[in-house]
């Protein structure tokens, strides 16, 4: 069982999750074979990232997507969290075909996820570093480098607003392939406004300069006739001074948000910067208008008068707009259906590796200079509200109020790495793009490449390649194989997954020529290649590229092509009526009734072919008399069997077929090692038949088996 930490409800049994296909036009890529993992490095209910993940999770789960959320525990070092996230992604990967990990760019939490383990989706929620930038706080270059690395290597990138991209570009190189689509919104239960209560202006957020709490108080001071409700976490613990009389402080964590919105005339979002503002989105979901600064991402979610944008930081204009909106006291239709629909479209397009722009409102084109100007203004605002305390007093206050944060932000916290947070420059300095997760994607006439098979743990490596048309069957088989905890060579990470689609059969030689030497070496390191309904030439090409791999070919469909017996070590046929497989002679043939039996059949096919120790000789033919000495006296490391024939000289003059025929006709005794018996079981079981005996000789010699032939 996998422990996904906090906020992992409904995820305790991913092996038995529903396999129902997803329906609907907005679920092309979001299908049952996908696991969507959200990394939540914040894990606080008052955090926008956590709210976003909560909304997105509900929405995706309603579309039958398997969603997992890995939350950073309170006080958990980032290094430990990164490793835990990577480990849990590895575990999830054992049960599904595709894993997507979505994480904010902040804190580079995906750094420990190995290449090929999952597709990484970075969504720009605004990093801590960006927060520091707009407040004029020092930046952590190491942190920035890590975050840049994750942005660069991510296979998918998205942003909840154009504003987020514009501002993030001050710190990171943002690739052009970034998608734009809104954050999802919650669905509030309909509740009746409190008629006796006067409507108020609502502020929700942490009491920080970054969230513009100072302006909220200032607004209340300048508009004493308008009631203000400030929902902040643990208001009693906050040390607010000179709270205006028209301000009511409520516990933003415990308060029921829908009730807060129902009695609000408007919501103010005066933050220095927000990529979207989840508070703003929640207000839109409740149909409550909001007033905010024009450079915030929420402006791109709805137009005025639903969202009123004020030029930053013209505070007087802001007050004027708040007053006007409050006096109107209007309600608008909930923006939730529209935002959620756009979110699903956006995530689908992004998963399909497409760039998209599904923002409800067109963003204002902002030049780099304008962004810098706004940032400079933000810094001025932040600095102005620092109360001009001496540095030592600010530090001392911080140490008393929050020793943990003091340590983390101090130089000591940067030098002494917390246990579990293994950060090495060289490791994170590597900015190579992540390679595709699949072991191989064989399509059209393109060059055939394979990912590097795992070096650790040591052991047999198995590749499973399937046709894109058989994806559902393949998924079932992979899940079945992953269930064999006692036979790890068919489980993750030893099981490599490959897909072939739009396969063009130009012949074996052409196919082999599409694999360069480096990739031939990679496929050579695979011990078993399992192919589901493959084109025959692919089986031959893959077996011919290496020197030791065995091929297990599964024919599950009636229209599947018959493979070449010379290049098929094991043939597994689903259904007895399938194909004319009985017309050929196979090394090992297994017939199963249905696809559900395939995992066990595959395991049999592979396990039978593994070495035996001790590898005793097994008499198949003859050896009627005193044969013990002969059978025990042979070293099966060098000879895999004894063949006896009374003919001193076969005197063949033709091809090898003639030699096989003459020997098969004249053989009196055959004993083979048990490993050989199991590898060629379908032939050994019928060894009395001369034709089968001849084919047994031909196949085994072709495969490199050496017999001690005694004449």
């Amino acid at each position, binding site marked *: 069982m996998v422990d996904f930490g906090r906020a992992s409800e409904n995820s305790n049994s991913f092996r038995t999750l529903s396999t129902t296909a997803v329906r609907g036009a907005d679920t092309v890529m979001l299908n049952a074979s996908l696991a969507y993992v959200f990394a939540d490095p914040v894990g606080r209910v008052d955090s926008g990232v956590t709210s976003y993940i909560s909304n997105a999770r509900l929405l995706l789960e309603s579309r039958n997507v398997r969603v997992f959320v890995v939350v950073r525990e309170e006080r958990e070092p980032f290094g430990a969290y990164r490793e835990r996230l990577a480990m849990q992604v590895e575990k999830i990967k054992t049960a599904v075909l595709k894993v997507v990990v979505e994480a904010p760019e902040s804190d580079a939490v995906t750094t420990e996820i190995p290449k090929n383990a999952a597709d990484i989706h970075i969504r720009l929620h605004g990093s801590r570093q960006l927060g520091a930038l707009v407040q004029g706080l020092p930046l952590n270059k190491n942190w920035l480098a890590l975050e840049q690395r994750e942005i660069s290597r991510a296979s998918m990138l998205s942003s909840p607003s154009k504003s987020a991209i514009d501002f993030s570009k001050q710190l990171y190189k943002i690739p052009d392939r970034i998608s734009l689509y809104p954050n999802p919104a919650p669905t509030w239960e309909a509740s009746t406004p409190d008629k006796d209560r006067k409507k108020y202006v609502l502020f929700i957020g942490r009491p920080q300069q970054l969230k513009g709490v100072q302006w909220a108080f200032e607004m209340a001071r300048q508009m004493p006739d308008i009631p203000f409700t400030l929902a902040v976490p643990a208001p009693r613990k906050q040390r607010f001074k000179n709270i205006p009389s028209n301000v009511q402080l409520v516990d933003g964590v415990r308060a029921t948000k829908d009730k807060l919105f129902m009695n609000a005339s408007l919501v103010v979002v005066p933050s220095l910067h927000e990529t979207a503002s989840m508070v703003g989105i929640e207000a839109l979901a409740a149909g409550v208008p909001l007033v905010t600064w024009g450079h915030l991402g929420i402006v791109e979610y709805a137009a005025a008068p639903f969202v009123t944008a004020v030029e930053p930081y013209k505070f007087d204009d802001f007050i004027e707009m708040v007053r006007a909106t409050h006096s109107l006291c209007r309600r608008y239709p909930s923006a939730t259906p529209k935002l959620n629909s756009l979110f699903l479209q956006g995530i689908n397009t992004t998963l399909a590796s497409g760039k998209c722009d599904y923002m409800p409102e067109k963003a204002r084109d902002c030049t780099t200079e304008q962004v810098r100007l706004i940032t400079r203004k933000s810094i001025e605002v932040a600095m102005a509200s620092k109360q001009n305390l001496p540095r030592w007093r600010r530090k001392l206050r911080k140490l008393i109020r929050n020793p943990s944060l003091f340590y983390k932000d101090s130089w000591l916290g940067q030098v002494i790495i917390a246990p579990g947070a293994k950060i090495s420059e060289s490791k994170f300095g590597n900015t190579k793009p992540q390679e595709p997760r699949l072991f191989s994607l064989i399509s059209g006439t393109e060059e055939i490449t394979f990912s590097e098979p795992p070096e650790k743990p040591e052991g047999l490596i198995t590749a499973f390649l399937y046709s894109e048309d058989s994806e559902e069957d393949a998924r079932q088989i992979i899940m079945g194989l992953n269930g064999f905890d006692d036979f790890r060579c068919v489980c993750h990470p030893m099981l490599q997954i490959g897909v072939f689609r739009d396969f063009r059969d130009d*012949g*074996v*030689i*052409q196919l*082999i020529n599409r694999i360069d030497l480096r990739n*031939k070496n990679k496929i*050579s390191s695979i011990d078993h290649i399992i192919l589901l309904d493959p084109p025959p030439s692919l089986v*031959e*090409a893959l*077996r*011919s*590229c*290496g*020197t*030791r791999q065995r091929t297990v070919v599964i024919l599950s469909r009636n229209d599947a092509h018959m493979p070449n017996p*010379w*290049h098929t070590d094991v043939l597994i046929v689903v259904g007895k009526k399938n194909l004319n497989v009985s017309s050929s002679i196979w090394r090992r043939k297994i017939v199963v009734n249905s696809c559900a039996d395939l995992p066990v059949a595959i395991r049999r096919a592979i396990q039978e072919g593994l070495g035996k120790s001790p590898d005793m000789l097994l008499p198949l033919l003859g050896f009627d008399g005193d044969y013990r000495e002969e059978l025990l006296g042979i*070293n099966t*490391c*060098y000879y895999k069997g004894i*063949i006896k024939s009374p003919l001193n*000289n*076969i*005197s*063949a*003059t*033709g*091809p*090898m*077929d003639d*030699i*096989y025929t003459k020997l098969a006709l004249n053989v009196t005794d055959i004993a083979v090692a048990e490993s050989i018996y199991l590898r060629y079981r379908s032939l050994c079981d019928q060894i009395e038949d001369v034709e089968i005996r001849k084919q047994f000789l*031909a196949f085994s*010699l*072709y*495969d*490199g088996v*050496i*017999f*001690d*032939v005694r*004449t």
Partner: protein
Amino acid sequence: MSALKIVHITPTPLVGAPGKIAWAQRMSGHRSLAVALSDYPEGGPLKKTFLAHTLEIDDFTRAHIDKSVRNADIIHLHNFLPDNWIKWLKNLNQTAAFVYQAHSPLREGPLYTERANDIAPFEFKLKLVVGQFQGRFYPSFLPVPNLVLSPPSIRKYQAGEKLRVMFSPTHKRGGRWNAKHSKELENSLSDLSQLNKIEVISPKQPVPPETLMELRRTCHVSIDEIATGGFHLVSLEAMCAGNIIINRADYFAKTTFSTFCDGQLPPFHYADNSCIAKVLLRLSEDWQETSRLQQKSYNFFCRYCDPMRLIGVYDAAYESIL
């Protein structure tokens, strides 16, 4: 058999094999020419090493080669022919009898794939395969022998002498049938050498075939390979040099070769990783037995492996299709 006009076409010199066949065919009265589409790569150790009896196609030789191909009775293709050269051949001659011969490729993998089918549009009247271990990959192909053109010689092991053992694996790659190197063998050679029982001659860099042959003539034992059940050209060259041949050739490899030798199995000396040290030690200590086995090798080569005799196998094969 009347004289035939034969052209051998090979993508690379294939360590001189087609050239040697052409030479032997010329010596037996045919007009035979071996043509390599290109030599081994520039700067590599094999460049210009195996072109003794083979013409490389270039501006100077092209006209003569075109004329030979146009007039050929038999066009004997070795291993593979790229598409553009198929077109060239088709334009020059479509009436000759086309023969295909499979050799070992550089890497073992393609050995498992029949490439004759990909050399369209020719219909091969005859498909041949080198008659050592390769026959098991092409069981319907007719085995034909590799040739050694050097004159045979023998330098017998004498009392008081140190046993000279040659081991010259061309690569260390693994494989079902193409492996040549084994750690146990290397250790045995090193140990016996340090005990002063044998002297190992093992070139560290690739040397020309003539040099290797002359060195072999000074040896008493040649080790082909003991990693698989096959044998290679080295075994035939060792017989030519009057060496005891150590390999692990199985019944089928030896039987295939015996089809060229009136059914006589070649006098290979069996050894595997478990007994190689013991075998070499015994040979080094029993000079009379070693000398007798050397003589046996030498006699077998002289009796059955003379190129003018073995070329008759090719003649017989051609005759069956003409």
